[in-house]
């Protein structure tokens, strides 16, 4: 019988939440599940994977992600084990790895899914920057899905027994696209695409220094800090903070937009947030038509008040 393969990523020795969402989906599906990890200490994950029969632990892939080697390794794993379905979080890693694997095995690949039915083998994904939803049936011998973070439940049902750990050697292929260095980002920064809470600033923040105000609010909420394109283009914020059509698509449970007007190109990047809060001094700003809760006022007054009030509420 065929198996669903789940590609998991780890952080500090634990499976990342977004990967657990993929695992939970696979476990709810019709066939047994196998997990694959490239993490050096991946064999240790077995203890936490009750109900999963197999853990493929790839060794010898090196401590740096090498796209060609990882892709060839997954290709071999899929072919040798007759795997027909692979799922993963839609993460920076899978965005690079899955298209490479799909091209190698001529798979059907649906990226950034918000719903997947593993029985009918179909998925729903936002298209046209989320202005429309596409329902797609996969139709190839091997099919791959990457899941938008924070959409699928992450609870993994208790199962029986821990997986058999199968060591897999990394494919012995040259790294033609050679990652020579990974330069770390700012320490402790929450990645926006997986963040549960985001505080974002727009042109209304007025300058780079004022983003510290948002960072303080974010720290209270354990949130990531985002920005509108206007804030990025004015160099108040870095591009990797941009939310929207030509930035990141985010999906937190809480999105706080400060000094952002709510242009459609921004809105499409954050509209699936569970709750949107807008703080803007212009009562006519379009963001108020889209926000769940709004406060009309000067963000330089409101944001510090909000920070203080949240500190009280959360302690």
């Amino acid at each position, binding site marked *: 019988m065929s198996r669903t393969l789940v590609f998991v990523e780890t952080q500090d020795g634990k499976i990342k939440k977004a990967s657990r969402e993929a695992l939970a989906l696979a476990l709810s599906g019709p066939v047994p599940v196998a997990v694959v990890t490239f993490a050096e200490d991946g064999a240790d994950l077995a203890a936490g994977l009750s109900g999963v029969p197999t853990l493929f632990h790839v060794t010898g892939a090196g401590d740096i992600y090498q796209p060609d080697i990882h892709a060839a390794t997954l290709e071999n794993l899929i072919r040798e084990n007759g795997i027909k379905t692979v799922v993963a979080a839609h993460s920076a890693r899978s965005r690079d790895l899955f298209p490479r694997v799909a091209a190698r095995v001529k798979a059907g690949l649906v990226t950034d899914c918000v719903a997947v039915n593993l029985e009918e083998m179909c998925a729903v994904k936002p298209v046209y920057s*989320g202005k429309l939803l596409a329902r797609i049936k996969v139709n190839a011998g091997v099919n791959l899905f990457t899941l938008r973070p924070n959409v699928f439940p992450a609870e993994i049902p208790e199962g029986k027994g821990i997986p058999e750990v199968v060591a897999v050697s990394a494919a012995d292929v040259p790294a033609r696209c050679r990652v020579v260095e990974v330069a770390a980002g700012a320490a402790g920064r929450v990645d926006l695409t997986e963040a549960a809470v985001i505080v974002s600033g727009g042109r209304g923040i007025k300058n780079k220094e004022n983003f510290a105000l948002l960072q303080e609010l974010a720290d209270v909420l354990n949130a990531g800090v985002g920005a509108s394109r206007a804030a990025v283009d004015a160099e108040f914020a870095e591009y990797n903070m941009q939310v929207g059509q030509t930035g990141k698509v985010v999906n937190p449970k809480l999105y706080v937009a400060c000094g952002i007007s709510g242009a459609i190109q921004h809105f499409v990047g954050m509209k699936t947030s569970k709750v949107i809060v807008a703080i803007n001094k212009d009562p006519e700003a379009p963001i108020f038509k889209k926000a769940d809760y709004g406060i009309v006022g000067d963000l330089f007054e409101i944001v510090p008040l909000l920070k203080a009030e949240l500190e009280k509420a959360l302690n």
Partner: protein
Amino acid sequence: MNIFVCIKQVPDTEASLSVEGGRKVRESGLKWVISPYDEYALEAAIQLKEKTAGSTVTAITVGPARADGVLRTALAMGATAAVHVETDSELDHHAIAACLAAAVRSCGEPDIILAGKQAIDVDAGVLPLFLAQVMDLPAASGVIAMEVTDGLAKVEREIEGGARERIEMALPCVIGATKGLNTPRYPSLMGIMKAKKVEVKKFTPAELNVESLEPALLLESLSVPEEKAPGRVIEGEPADAVRELVRLLRDEAKVL
């Protein structure tokens, strides 16, 4: 250098979209543009050409007749040639990659192929890597910085939380561009005049020997997502409004 850029025509980012027949975007009245990330690819290609004497930039698109528009824009920006693989079929990415690969080869051996990291219609973000595999070339996508010297491309891509991978690839290679790589130029008036005179090479997928394979993906339906009901503005003095907001976030929305 023999430089190629893959560009796709998409609805203008401002457009609000509707669906007809359950699985097609209603096209009447739509304004069409080059997919934004492809503009970064185009700009990078034109800058490379300007740096290396005797280079050509060939823009390629796979799409219906109307997609000719993006090729004209690319030519007006500074591309030197254009290829249109004309088809009304909805091709999947394996087929698009096969068309693009064949179109590139019809113009000789590439030194570098640029594309956007993602087309903002299908939002797949896969094609540069598919194309590289079909052509057996190294590739990196989501590239925010690049330098090409002596047959080597040194690029950077952003991964998570602001971290960056520095990557080296021998040419020929495929690069998927993203914002941050450069600032795309506007077409000049002279460019627009010149673009009108360029003859676009046309092919059908069949002429490029791309057999009509069984598609890997089938679009079953397109729909407009439900919009949530408009929310409310919390009135009152700032301090009161903020207190009420926190209460609502905790007790009503339950997100704290």
